[in-house]
């Protein structure tokens, strides 16, 4: 199976998003690159609004992810509560 991935700019806001991803996807690999954080996982990766809000301590919309987004790979399923990346088998 291939890996899905997402890369975010390395800044104050992304840190909370990364923390949330780490909590929701314990198997994911986080790679810190210059000015960029890349997160990879086998087959599936999910970003949940609720977890990010908890980490940030304020309201957050899934759409706001795009402010810090550099690239992603995988089939995107996005709604108000989550954004998930998957590859079909």
């Amino acid at each position, binding site marked *: 199976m291939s890996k899905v991935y997402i890369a975010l700019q390395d800044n104050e806001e992304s*840190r909370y998003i990364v923390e949330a991803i780490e909590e929701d996807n314990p198997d994911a690999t986080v790679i810190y690159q*210059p000015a960029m954080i890349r997160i990879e996982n086998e087959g599936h990766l999910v970003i949940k609004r609720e977890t990010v809000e908890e980490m940030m*301590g*304020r309201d957050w919309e899934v759409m706001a992810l795009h402010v810090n987004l550099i690239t992603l790979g995988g089939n995107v399923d996005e709604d108000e509560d989550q954004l998930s990346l998957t590859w079909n088998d």
Partner: protein
Amino acid sequence: MTIEIKTATLEPIRNTFEHTKRRFGDKPASRYQEASYDIAPENNFHYRPMWQPEKLLNDTSRTAVVMEDWYAYKDPRQFYYGTYVQARAKLQEVTESNYAFFNKRGLADRMSDEVKSKIIRCLVPLRHMELGANMNNVLCTAYGTSTVLTQAFLYNGMDRLGIAQYLSRIGLLLDGNSTESLATAKEYWMTDSAWQGLRRYTENTLVLEDWFEVFIAQDVVLDTLVYDLIYRQFDEAITEEGGSDLAMLIEFMQEWHKDNSRWVDATLKSTVAESEHNKELIGRWVAEWQEKAVADLAPLAEIAVGEEAVKASVEVLNKRLAKAGI
């Protein structure tokens, strides 16, 4: 010719302060963590305070609540100065535009005299309670122990001054800037029998010495009851009577209370979960102050909303307390 762009990675020498590292581990820390944890000095003081020589500065014995670690708390809003100011500026911007709209459209003139005088009698005098709440929260900042708590108390205290000012402005909007309503409201606060209970309660909290008891009496018990009674139930009642435009002016208080409650609940929960001693102590304080508050608020509730109003507010309080584990 091909040009290869190379990137050089500069590793930071350290991720964060030593004391932050000791608490959260060696990784990049958030601004909130760096600004809030392990900041207030705890030992190696040269002098004892002259006003209380039997205790140290930041002495943990200024409250009967015992915490193994006074930094076990976390503000779910993660407010430090920067984020707090940003959040409030945002809230205030909305409120200012509401007030401007209310003024521009002359909505005060569309209210009947009965509605106006009811607002002046039941809402505007609250600004005196807010000033008491300001002093109570600032007292907690002064005598409280850890920065993670005391900063939140200070923000709460500042917010209360802001709310008192908004209440004054409601008075000014209703009386055409003559300040007459503020004088009337002060008179209600000082002499009206409906307000004497709340005034007595406020004055009783002002002379407490245990800062955590102040927090319980003010932020937990009284605020829950008053904010539910006035900003939910009275709001509904006055809307029925044709004063629905008031809602624009008190939205700040409603939003603020929702926001602040998150912190109050989290603080309460952490304290109660610490030990049986804390649980028992806080349970006793809550019961004691709740009994007083219910009796003291009853006359105001009756003129503002109706007979059953206090009961409904007590239910809201009990729900909150149950969630915190009391």
